[in-house]
């Protein structure tokens, strides 16, 4: 093991453990959480690993406190993460909004299980995708990444920290039980410091520093609480100093910037993979674990003479709307398999805007689609 404590090598590990290792490799040195199936192994691994790398693990009294604790750790200068599932994700929503309002870099991992409510605690779902986008109150933008394998959850947890530090926004890793509890080969490379992003720090004098005055990219440099720069946090609408200002103008200025710093930088943020879309007449638009079975269905459709392709969303938020709009000019239909009863399909439908039809392949949760089910939908879609 290298001196910084990050693992390096080839391992056979489950997605939860790979997520924790991704966090360690990304420089995460604070974790606060509350155990919940199927995310417990993330916390368990962090509790084992953090003390060995000079980090701090705190088991909190609940998920509300967990979310608060990682915000505080981030203000104190650490890269911080929590992980949860289902009911715990709901409890974190209020303070996720505080993280957005105070432009706090942090990572929230949701190993999704089937709901509503307690649902199927030990079984997979993708039912929190819209909650990820809209779960906290008010107008905001968020970044959400969706991994499809233990290897990818390792990689994307690092990406999540990088985007979070770059844009000063909480980033969600929206995985699921199938990926979290599945063990596969995970190659952990030596991550060089150049591959890691840290929040931009103020470079002016302490007297001139305004904690919420953004640079040209709409992201403000961030000082560490206690190092001498002015530091003020409030969930109230605030000015560049961080002081509450209860006016329509201040609200307009702040909320517009919080949203636009993501929207105007979406080209840098949005990630997707395309498989055989060049000549496609039908495209399966999928994310997470569903992309693995979708890939089999697309191959099989090709073997049957159907010009099928796949758009694998890696970021679900912000949504790859420009790409869907382009593809809608070309294809007859989008097929959208989801382990829910229709969430991201609404976004696809919005962007297709009637130019291509949209076919949902729902799964109520508790497992993953059969490739044959998706294949059947592909065949229906081109008829």
């Amino acid at each position: 093991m290298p001196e910084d404590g990050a693992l390096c090598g080839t391992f056979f590990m489950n997605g939860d453990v790979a997520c924790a290792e991704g966090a360690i490799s990304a420089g995460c040195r604070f974790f606060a959480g509350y155990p919940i199936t199927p995310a417990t192994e993330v916390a368990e691994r962090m509790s084992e690993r953090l003390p060995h790398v000079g980090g701090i693990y705190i088991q909190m009294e609940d998920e509300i406190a967990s979310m608060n604790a990682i915000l505080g750790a981030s203000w104190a200068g650490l890269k911080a993460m929590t992980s949860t599932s289902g009911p715990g994700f709901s409890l974190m929503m209020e303070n996720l909004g505080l993280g957005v309002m105070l432009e706090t870099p942090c990572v929230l991992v949701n190993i999704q299980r089937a709901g509503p409510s307690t649902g199927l605690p030990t079984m997979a779902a993708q039912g929190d995708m819209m909650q990820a986008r809209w779960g906290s109150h008010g107008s905001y933008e968020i970044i959400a990444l969706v991994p499809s394998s233990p290897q990818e959850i390792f990689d994307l947890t690092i990406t999540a920290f990088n985007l979070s530090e770059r844009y000063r926004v909480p980033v969600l890793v929206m995985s699921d039980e199938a990926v979290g509890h599945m063990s596969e080969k995970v190659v952990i490379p030596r991550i060089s410091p150049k591959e890691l992003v840290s929040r931009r720090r103020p470079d002016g004098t302490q007297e001139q520093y305004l904690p919420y005055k953004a640079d040209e990219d709409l992201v403000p440099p961030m000082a560490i609480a206690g190092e001498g720069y002015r530091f003020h946090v409030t969930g109230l609408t605030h000015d560049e100093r961080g002081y509450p200002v209860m006016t329509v103008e201040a609200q307009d200025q702040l909320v517009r910037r919080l949203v636009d710093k993501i929207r105007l930088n979406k080209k840098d943020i949005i990630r997707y993979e395309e498989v055989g879309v060049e000549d496609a007449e039908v495209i399966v638009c999928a994310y997470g674990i569903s992309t693995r079975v979708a890939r089999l269905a697309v191959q099989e459709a090709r073997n049957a003479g159907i010009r099928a392709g796949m758009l694998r969303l890696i970021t679900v938020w912000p949504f790859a709307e420009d790409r869907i709009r382009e593809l809608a000019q070309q294809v007859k239909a989008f097929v959208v398999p989801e382990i829910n009863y229709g969430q991201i399909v609404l976004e696809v439908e919005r962007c297709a805007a009637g130019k291509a039809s949209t076919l949902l392949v729902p799964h109520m949760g508790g497992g993953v689609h059969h490739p044959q089910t998706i294949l059947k939908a592909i065949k229906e879609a081109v008829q």
Partner: protein
Amino acid sequence: MLDNKQGCKSLGTKEIRIAGFGGQGVVLSGLILGQAASIYDDGFSALTQSYGPEARGGSCTAEVVISDEPIGYPYVQSPNVLIILSQEAYNKYSQDLPAGALMIIDPDLVKPEPSQNPAPLSIPATRMARDMGRTVVANIIILGFLAAVSDLISPEALKNSVLASVPKGTEEFNTKAFELGYNYGLEHGRKGEVADG
């Protein structure tokens, strides 16, 4: 390409189900198998397992999918190999076996139907482990047996994976257990039967 007769299983994919009680080393066996296939044999494998209280005393299952290409569907559809370590697991999983599937049982724990064709391969691994002085190595004995009677994974890869997974200081004992099972397999097994699934 999907094998249409087998639902959504890719051709060239092998599936293994290990089922028994919690505490028999079912999950560790799955981990050793999966690790052997994807790291020491340099292929692809995915392990899924039963989760919750059942993995700590009740019925317990580990499923390993092995392939020479990345694995899409990670769950067992039509197993090529079943390792059955309890009567309950036998009753649940012995029906509707695909043709050519190999079943391995511990005859002290499982009484198979006389009509089952082909008859399962037997290894009294729990008794052999007890005779060695430690019942906990029964799963390692069975993995040695599997290495001898099937071509799913090379014996070297499986043995390396065992050694990488057992507690430090127990390597020699586990090697002995693995070789005991392997030699029993060479003597009593039918090597190569599941090579083509």
